């Protein structure tokens, strides 16, 4: 029989406001095994924990029930408390009477009644708890960063700086990401390339960092400290270690009409290409969809002009297998498609563009060499209309856009408007906004400068319809403050498209078994206290894959993720989760049902000798679980027809006891 102590937390008024904590403590006193039952204002506080320790010593307790917030919050805290008082940490159970009781019910009697039942269930469970000891596993001291934008670059540099090897996997032929496409950055207007490319060079020159560009992660196995990852390196038909990046092949390539994705299709590139001048690695890549040699064997010019002999038309995709201790997701974002917002005529006029396209139009390395010219006729636009919140802040069920605020648009639009007025003072610039959101250091000052010093017309209202007619774009909009409908003949319309996670994020999350929200942003382990960790141990989050972010925020989160990775890799051993499956060999009939459902291959079958009552021996085939590999899902426990398989910490008898306690 256990000797159980029950500790009911008030959590200030968070619990005590809707649950009569004294009554709960009193009611649980009479439960089987309960020796002491008491309450306190903050159980997680120093003195609350001391109270538990004292009670353990005084009453020789063997089990603890804490009725408090969610176990996701403080289970670890109270386990540590118990351990420091000398009892096994897995003898602690939490009754969640805050998130799942006091916060969702308003009525004191109802809340109290439910809290008592939840407490009883926890007591019933603890009565059947057994001390558990976690196993240990080694840590592979190498990190994987998926995504080579500014988030991935910064994370990799910081991890490498601490002395650990890092691999970056980037699906494009070069690292650099979205930041490489930008012209200037807010709020200081330094040029994006000037601050990004030195970092790209650092990555290339760091002997701790390997770049797998034009590559994807195709498989992830294992667990924290011990991930086995397969990386598919797409054939670029150019030997990376031989190519010097001289560009002779690009000059000679006859296939010159390939839409240039780096400039968002606003100009063309060749079939063999280097995305931009500072690409890292600076090696050429052949686009197999356009290369004549690869398509029909007719050409081969690039191989002829390549002095280094780097071209290899027979190259195949390569699969690399590597072990990692930690994985950082830095898959970034993309602007959403404007297909469902064609009231702005994006598909009907070349002069309706997205903000990222505008960025390329003003970039010195862009299709117009930095001159702001209309894509349709190459003329200088005299009236430009910026439309904010295109696809952001939409009602979820409207199925058109995104429910969230994309966060970066207000600032980059202010930047675009300001730079336009600065370079071309003869241009009229209108910005239609719903709200201007500038919560960042020096952000609001920046936006005010756009209005006050640069004379950008900020209009509170939205654009309803853009009608291309002749060489004008007729913009119909509302000015809510003047209470007027406006009609503006614009030359260029720029849409601040909402941003969404990269499409590769969803399949990657499945590979990593990392959770995502309904918008396909990765979920953090705790929204406030563990913002750069995924709930899946060993998986960390960096940059916009977790939510919309600007560059300063991305870089700080990248550093934070790196420090978490360094903390993990610095350990030699990790303690595992003792809540793993185990099989009763006497009951096992060797049917292999459990082996078939185990997603980790943790179950193997061995022949074992059994001594029979009549002193003969019998060799039977029985299951055994490798506790280092088992993750404790419990699929096998249900598949087992003989009831031999059970799960530590969530034993069938324990869950049944909870059911009984709740249904009493």
């Amino acid at each position: 029989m256990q000797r159980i102590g029950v500790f009911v937390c008030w959590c200030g008024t968070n619990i005590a406001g809707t649950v009569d904590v004294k009554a709960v403590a009193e009611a649980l006193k009479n439960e089987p095994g309960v020796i002491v039952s008491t309450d306190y204002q903050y159980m997680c506080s120093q003195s609350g924990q001391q109270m538990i320790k004292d009670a353990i010593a005084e009453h020789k307790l063997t089990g603890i029930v804490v009725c408090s917030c969610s176990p996701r919050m403080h289970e670890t805290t109270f386990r540590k408390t118990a351990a420091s008082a000398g009892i096994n940490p897995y003898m602690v159970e939490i009754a969640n009477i805050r998130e799942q009781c006091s916060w969702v019910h308003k009525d004191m009697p109802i809340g109290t009644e439910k809290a008592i039942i939840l407490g009883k269930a926890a007591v019933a469970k603890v009565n059947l708890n057994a001390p558990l000891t976690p196993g240990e596993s080694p840590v592979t001291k190498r990190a994987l960063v998926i995504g080579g934008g500014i988030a991935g670059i910064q994370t990799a540099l910081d991890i490498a700086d601490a002395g650990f090897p890092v691999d970056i996997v980037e699906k494009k032929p070069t690292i650099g990401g979205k930041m490489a496409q930008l012209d200037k950055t807010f709020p200081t207007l330094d040029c994006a390339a000037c601050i990004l490319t030195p970092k790209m060079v650092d990555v290339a020159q760091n002997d701790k960092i390997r770049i797998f560009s034009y590559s994807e992660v195709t498989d992830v196995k294992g667990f924290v400290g011990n991930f086995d990852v397969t990386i598919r390196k797409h054939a670029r038909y150019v030997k990376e270690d031989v190519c010097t990046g001289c560009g002779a092949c690009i000059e000679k390539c006859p296939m010159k009409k390939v839409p240039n994705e780096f400039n968002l299709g606003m100009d063309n590139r060749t079939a063999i290409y280097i995305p931009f001048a500072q690409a890292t690695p600076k090696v050429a890549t052949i686009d197999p969809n356009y290369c004549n040699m690869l398509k029909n064997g007719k050409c081969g010019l690039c191989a002829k002009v390549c002095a280094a002999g780097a071209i290899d038309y027979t190259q195949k995709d390569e699969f690399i297998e590597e072990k990692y201790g930690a994985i950082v997701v830095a898959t970034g974002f993309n602007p959403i498609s404007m297909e469902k917002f064609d009231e702005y005529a994006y598909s009907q006029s070349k002069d309706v563009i997205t903000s990222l396209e505008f960025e390329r139009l003003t970039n010195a390395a862009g299709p117009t060499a930095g001159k702001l010219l209309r894509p349709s006729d190459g003329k200088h636009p005299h009236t430009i209309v910026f439309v904010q919140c295109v696809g952001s802040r939409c009602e979820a069920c409207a199925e058109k856009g995104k429910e969230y605020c994309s966060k970066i648009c207000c600032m980059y639009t202010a930047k675009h408007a300001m730079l336009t007025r600065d370079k071309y003072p003869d241009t009229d610039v209108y910005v239609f906004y719903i709200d201007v959101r500038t919560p960042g250091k020096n952000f609001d000052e920046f936006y005010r400068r756009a209005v006050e010093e640069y004379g950008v017309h900020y209009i509170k209202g939205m654009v309803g319809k853009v009608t291309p007619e002749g060489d004008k774009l007729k913009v119909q909009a509302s000015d809510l403050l003047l209470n007027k409908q406006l009609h503006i003949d614009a030359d260029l319309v720029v849409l601040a498209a909402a941003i969404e996670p990269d499409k590769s994020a969803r399949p990657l999350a499945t590979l990593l078994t990392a959770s995502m929200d309904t918008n396909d942003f990765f979920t953090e382990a705790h929204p406030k206290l563990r913002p750069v960790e995924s709930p899946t141990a060993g998986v960390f989050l960096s940059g916009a894959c977790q939510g919309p972010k600007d560059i300063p925020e991305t870089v700080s989160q990248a550093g934070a993720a790196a420090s978490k990775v360094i903390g993990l890799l610095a350990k030699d051993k990790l303690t595992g989760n003792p809540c793993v499956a185990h099989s009763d060999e006497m009951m096992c009939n060797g049917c292999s049902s459990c082996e078939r459902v185990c997603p980790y291959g943790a179950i193997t079958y061995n022949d074992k000798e059994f001594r029979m009552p009549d002193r003969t021996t019998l060799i039977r085939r029985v299951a055994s679980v490798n506790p280092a590999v088992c993750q404790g899902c419990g699929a096998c426990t249900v598949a087992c027809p003989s009831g031999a398989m059970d799960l530590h910490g969530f034993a069938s008898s324990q869950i049944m006891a909870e059911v009984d306690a709740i249904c009493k």
Partner: protein
Amino acid sequence: MLRKRTKMMKVSYFPGCTLKNKAVQLDIYARKCAEALGVSLEEIENWQCCGGVFSTAKDEIATKLSSVRALKEAKEKNRPLVTVCSACHNVIKQTNHAMSTDAEFAGKVNRYMAEDTDYAGETEVMHYLEMLRDLVGFDKIKEKVVKPLTGKKIAAYYGCLLLRPNSVMKMDNPENPRIIEDLIRALGAEPVMYANRNECCGGYVIMESPSLAEKKSQAVVENAKSAGAEIITTACPLCRYNLLKNGADIPVIYFTELLAQALGLKEDTDEQ
């Protein structure tokens, strides 16, 4: 050997009052073309006027009964209900949607009708254009074209009723539709894209404020012409009336007439 199926596909057909009167061309050629394409339009018996506009008010019951009756007949015959007039289509489709999604409203209607069986939005409501696209197929139409409309620059005018509210109508992308353009292409002509093709012509407000309708209709015609249109085609009798009344100086014809011309069922006179 499999015998080639030549059986006519049967669908229920709701012509509506305007098609029996001022827009007979829309009706006549819809029937002729359907027959040529292997679809038999079975007119609903004793249909009544749809009412022209769908009242979005949840407590409007009586005005929606004629639609429900037609839908119910189609249900009993287990056929989709095909409409041609944009207004009829809009009213019937919205009524059907309300019957299938708003239980309170459907309950009231069913109690009011007090018939043996209840109706809960089971019938599929299909515009003639959707029938061409989904049942017949534009590819098949292309094969059947005998007098392709080669060289003609035709602007599709959708107006508002065919596309909106998109959550109910679900015909096409409401901001950048292509169903009529695809038909125009299948008939051998060149579709003209212009932004105002899904803007309102002024509709019934012509009776209340002719100047408003004039402004809206002119904006549509101007935009179409600036994009190079020589002909405007539409599915809606009221759109056609408004555009012509308000000074369209290029032909405005029903899409069924274009179809009939290409299928060799109508002389190309370009008359209005």
